[in-house]
């Protein structure tokens, strides 16, 4: 593994390896001294062309906990605002000797271009590109699900699992409902592929206007009715997606041309106390953040003990430490040449 660009490229073994490594990283984060010397002398550049708080801080924390040097680069206040191209920015980073570039870009495919155009030798980690992929978010979601649902020997999964240590296990048999603005969501795209690879069954729930064209080729089911899905499939995890109003044009009334008004969206697709009560007792509630409280998720659901939203953020650091470790710690020349 030289780059992490898309969850569609990850094999089951790779994904489990990342989750297992993340579990060991998470264990070190409960110590008094959280810093490890593993990536001492390596340089990680956070290249953010799009606003982000938690992803950038999470990557920065992960790199610093592994003793790497971190350079933060955001498009605002950089030469990009003067019109510098991605290529020239990349060549600058190459000249500075970056070992890994963590990139978030508004254009789908920008990380792929950076990884394959030959501008940089460094490992490239996709931290979200346009409406394409956000692989570390999907990995941290899978890690959170495995921790909560696999370790306890999930109900409805055949009951053959050993309760306790989920190391080495996938998510076979788990049912996950991904609800909301699937059209604009790179989180949903990443999760569909990763969860499918790990053996979970994904059901997307969205209004017809927010379901992307071509969804029938994705390895998942699609439904337009949240209540039906919650009652009939009894999902083990419900992942609410943020309604990305900044990507909806003409959003005068709240939803642009995608839904009549926010109240109607909430009534049909929002997770509230009533819908929470429909779910099995072990079901966890997830949200990639930032939340629109009162739109896709009510305060009651977001603050309920079944919500693991804050834990997702903590797990994000461990998963990103694992990704940086697996990309950067090994032998530079052969490892990268062999798998590229």
């Amino acid at each position, binding site marked *: 593994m030289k780059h992490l660009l898309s969850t569609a490229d990850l094999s089951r073994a790779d994904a489990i390896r990342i989750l297992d*490594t993340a579990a*060991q990283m998470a*264990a070190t984060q409960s*110590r008094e*001294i959280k810093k*490890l010397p593993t990536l001492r002398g390596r340089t990680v550049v956070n290249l953010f062309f799009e606003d982000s708080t938690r992803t950038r801080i999470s990557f920065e924390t992960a790199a610093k906990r592994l003793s790497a040097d971190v350079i933060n680069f955001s498009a605002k206040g950089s030469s990009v605002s003067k019109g510098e191209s991605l290529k020239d920015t990349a060549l600058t980073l190459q000249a500075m000797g970056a070992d890994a570039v963590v990139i978030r870009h508004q254009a789908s495919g920008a990380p792929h271009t950076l990884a394959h155009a030959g501008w940089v030798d460094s490992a490239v980690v996709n931290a979200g590109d346009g409406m394409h992929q956000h692989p570390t978010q999907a990995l941290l979601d899978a890690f959170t699900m495995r921790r909560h649902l696999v370790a306890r020997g999930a109900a409805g999964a055949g009951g053959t699992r050993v309760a306790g240590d989920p190391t080495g296990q996938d998510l076979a048999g788990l049912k996950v409902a991904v609800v909301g603005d699937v059209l604009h969501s790179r989180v949903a795209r990443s999760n569909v592929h990763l969860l499918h690879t790990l053996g979970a069954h994904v059901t997307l729930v969205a209004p017809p206007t927010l379901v992307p064209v071509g969804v029938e080729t994705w390895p998942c089911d699609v439904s337009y009715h949240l209540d039906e899905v919650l009652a009939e499939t009894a999902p083990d995890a419900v992942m609410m997606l943020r309604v990305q109003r900044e990507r909806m044009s003409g959003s005068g009334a709240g939803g642009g041309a995608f839904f009549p008004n926010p109240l109607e969206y909430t009534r049909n697709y929002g997770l509230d106390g009533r819908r929470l009560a429909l779910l099995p007792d072990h079901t966890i509630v997830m949200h990639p953040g930032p939340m629109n409280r009162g739109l896709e998720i009510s305060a009651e659901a977001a603050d309920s003990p079944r919500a693991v939203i804050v834990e997702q953020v903590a797990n994000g650091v461990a998963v990103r430490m694992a990704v940086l*470790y*697996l990309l950067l710690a*090994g*032998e530079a020349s052969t490892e990268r040449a062999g798998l590229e």
Partner: protein
Amino acid sequence: MSSGPAVPSSEPPVTPEDPSDGVTTVLGEAEIARALTRIAHEVVERNKGAHDVVLLGIPTRGVPLAARLAERLASIEPGLVAADVVGELDVTMYRDDLHKHPVRTIGATHLPASGIDGKVVVLVDDVLFSGRTIRAALDAISDIGRPRAVQLAALVDRGHRELPIRPDYVGKNLPTSLSERVSVRLVETDGAASSGEPVTDAVLISQRPTTPSEATR
């Protein structure tokens, strides 16, 4: 050139010169058991009891060795529970050769419930060679606590130290050449991988393979 060993067949079939496989068994199951029993007594003698002692095994094969030592300590010292004094310490993230090998899988670190602060930590590993693993272990220990003392137990000391590190307890001193490979086989770690054949504990010496694909310690 010559086919077969140049010695009578009544000799043990494990002479180092044997070109067919070139594997010599240095310690067998019984010798390993006796060495561990002796080390356990030495630990108790040196530390005037075992109630402050914590045994930390270094993965992979240090872990079952530490567990076996803990059982012996429990049988020597009344009132001692083996599970309370044994743990495992993964040193992967502290190694100085990470960039010279393909990415290593990170093992688990488990400490006994009592922690290691103020205790005597005995590191347990199978083969002591360059000393670099122990150097990494010392760094790992300083990140998780402050023991009163750190001691080192190794089943085999094969020499060729590259750092000023010495063992406190040794199962067997084994003078080797750098072209040789010392491997330890334990029922706990190597039993399942075998294809049906019963596996017994052993310490083996073989010639280092000349193919560069073979991983080296």
